[in-house]
């Protein structure tokens, strides 16, 4: 009797699941119409590993599949830490499963290139050479900018954040957690006008470290912090939904962190993978990326908001690759407990 009652309750779960599933399952994307013939041999299924946001990657895949009806892209999307762990796990259990990796920062990609997991080929494209190497091409950019809470004067320069005005009220993202924050750390450390002393001054001014740039944005919007360092996408997304924040591209410039894409050296479908890379670096692909809300790397393609004459600076990525472990250790001496 009791068991029957238990199973009755179990059964009661199923309709709930079904109701949830019926939320509109019919609009699941129909891929590839097999009857339509394609003039190229771009076909088969490739696997894409990426950390770019879901809102960016979904339209890009959709557009690529529409342009190449015989090709399908299987997506694994996760935050950088999970993505890295997945790659590391793959490598130790029979090899990388991805045909294409689209990372969120050059340091991660350089590590993969150093291990011969990716590289050896890049598509023909007009994307400028300062966001590409022989092994990978930058397809999107994150800009680290400053945000200020309502009623707080926004900083005009990064150095303003160490002023009395922002005492006990600056949030910085953790470079041990977010690659974009590591890029910012790299830039400041490399610039003789800042150096690690900048972080010491921030800490002395009562600055607080939080995990991710999004937490900076939200914390400033909620009024927990007066100002903070975050990425432009997160800041503009919050502002456009009505969050009370000001966004500035401070002097000497917003810090640009490019997200590169690369071909896996052991790609199972190299031709389709190359076609995908060519597509996302083409004007058409870059336009889709821009319309989806990410900053494109191809000049002439208009992306999300960049204020007129906004200053932009670039870390020296090659140098940073060698410095990052020491930098991070030094940083943790400053912002650790």
């Amino acid at each position, binding site marked *: 009797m*009791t068991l029957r009652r238990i199973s009755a309750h179990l059964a009661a779960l199923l309709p709930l699941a079904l109701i949830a599933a019926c939320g509109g399952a019919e609009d699941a994307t129909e891929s590839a119409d097999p009857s339509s013939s394609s003039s190229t041999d771009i076909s088969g299924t490739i696997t894409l590993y990426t950390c770019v946001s879901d809102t960016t990657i979904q339209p890009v895949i959709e557009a690529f599949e529409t342009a190449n009806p015989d090709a399908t892209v299987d997506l694994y999307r*996760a935050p950088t830490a999970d993505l890295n*762990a997945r790659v590391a*796990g793959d490598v*130790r259990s029979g090899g990388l499963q991805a045909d294409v990796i689209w990372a969120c920062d050059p340091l991660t990609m350089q590590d993969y290139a150093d291990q011969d997991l990716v590289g050896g080929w890049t598509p023909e494209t007009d994307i400028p050479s300062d966001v590409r190497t022989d092994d990978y091409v930058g397809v999107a950019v994150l800009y680290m900018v400053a945000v200020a809470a309502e009623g707080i004067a926004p900083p005009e320069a990064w150095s303003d954040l160490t002023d009395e005005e922002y005492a006990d009220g600056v949030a910085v993202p*953790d470079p041990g957690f977010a690659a974009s924050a590591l890029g910012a750390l790299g830039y400041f450390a490399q610039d003789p006008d800042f150096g690690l002393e900048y972080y010491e001054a921030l800490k002395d001014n009562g600055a607080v470290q939080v995990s991710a740039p999004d937490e900076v944005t939200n914390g400033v919007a909620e009024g927990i912090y007066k100002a903070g360092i975050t990425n432009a996408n997160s800041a503009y997304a919050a502002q456009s939904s009505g969050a009370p924040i000001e966004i500035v591209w401070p002097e000497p410039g917003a810090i640009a962190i490019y997200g590169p894409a690369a071909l896996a050296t052991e790609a199972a479908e190299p031709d389709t993978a190359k076609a995908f890379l060519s597509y996302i670096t083409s004007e058409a692909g870059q336009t889709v990326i821009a319309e989806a809300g990410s900053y494109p790397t191809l000049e002439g393609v208009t992306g999300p908001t960049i204020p007129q004459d906004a200053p932009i600076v670039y870390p020296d990525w090659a140098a940073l690759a060698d410095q990052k472990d020491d930098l991070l250790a030094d940083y943790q001496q400053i912002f650790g407990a």
Partner: protein
Amino acid sequence: MAFAAAMVVLVPLLVMARTVWVEGSADLDDILTSPGLGTAVKNTFLLAVAVTVLAVPLGTLLALALRRPDLPGRAFWRVAILLPVLVPDFVLGYSWLRAYGRAGFTDDLLGVHWSGVQGPVGVTVVVVVNAVPLVYLITAVGLAARAEPAMERAARVSGAGALSVLRTITLPLLAPAMATAAVLVFVLTLGTFAIPQVMGSPAGFNTITTRIYSNLARSSDPLAFTEAVTLALLLVVIAVLVVAPADSLLGPRLRVTRAATTDPTSLAGNNKASGRWAATGIGCYSLLAVGLPLLALMATAVTQAVGLPPTPENWTIANFLSVINARNGEALSRSVLLAAIAASVLVLLGGLVAALERGRSGRSVATLVTLTLVLPGSTLALGMLIAYGHWLGGTLAIILLAYIAKLWAIAHRPISGALDRLPPDELHASRVSGASPFTAIRTVVLRPLAPALLAAWLVCFLTALHEVTMSSLLYGPGSETLAVVVLNSAELGQVGATSALAVLITVVLLVPALGFWSVIRRLNRIPVTSSPTPTAPELARVG
């Protein structure tokens, strides 16, 4: 059984150890002496001790108070206390920040905030609140299985005070359940990640798990990867050092075989005033620990942008609409199915280990299956991926394996704690008296164990349902779980959408959870055969 434990628990641990051995033996010294690691180990250990010391008495107290049938609003409080199980832990951490932090709920309304909420004290308190439902469930099941109301009444009649009855009769009988809860809470806290990450980071509060995650974030660099795996194994070593002695010392001492003489009528409180005090206490706890934070979460879910006051002109259902879509629906139904399968398999496996444990050899299996509980989800998933990714990569099967490895101990220990209610003679007696094996198990074994089995099933199901870290690392095309879609929206910083999803999960789950609770309650009331050995005719009738 030993084979299953080896496949699910031992193999991932061994492949991780092998990875460190092969790739990192040269760096081991550097890793273990790296600056800050000592502090992180100390923080982790102190956090686990503090949470265990606070959560076990608190959960036990709640279970004892809620045992009184005359307690005002008893059914309501029982559900309120369990609510944190329904919310992913990172959401619970966030909701506390929204409730008590700077610019939070209390700050807006009363102008007071608790600055310590971002820091070690806040982390400890929220991990305690997160652990209390588990302690409560285990001790409530322990009470259902082991209480001796007749003895308690006899003591009261003979002039013993309420406290001395508690001390000399009730608590000693509850000791195995409390020990079970303590081991689980300690191990779970060692491996807890989301709450320290969300709440401890601003105060520079690091634990082993936050260091592991930081290393995973940079694990494209082989050195950082090795460090992550090494630190995960360090957690396993700490868990072994604590759990193995506890199991071998406490286990046999606390285990007594008793006849199933439980008189299920609860001990009636004879003091109205103390009942009111108890209800007030529980009410305050539920309101402050669960109610206000979840209210703050609700407010975030219905507010159109982060930072706007949660007043009607800023209300929106857009967050809910953005969450209700085909992908999330599919993921939710997939997660419900996966969690139900995982919970059912886990209860079976947990029960088998509990049965095995009665023999000497089984005890090591019991300790063994606790080891994967301590691993933060990301590293356990990594171990699974290295061990089985080649065959099962991207499938629901590998996620299921990871869930089983993570939750096996949580299923096993509560069942084990209730198993001494079941003297082996009764099973023999029923078989000798002609009951079929199935009948014997159904009537003799399952009935007295039902509360424990249900509690174990419930905890596993709910935990698996909103599990975040493992599935996000292991999923593939067609096996996206709810966690994956939660993370997709959380990572975009859409706090409103994430909150809306958490609220929806809570509501969707509350319905079956309430149903379950009424089942458990009814089971507690079923009179268990009152004679130590049921007579053959009785058994035959049931069969």
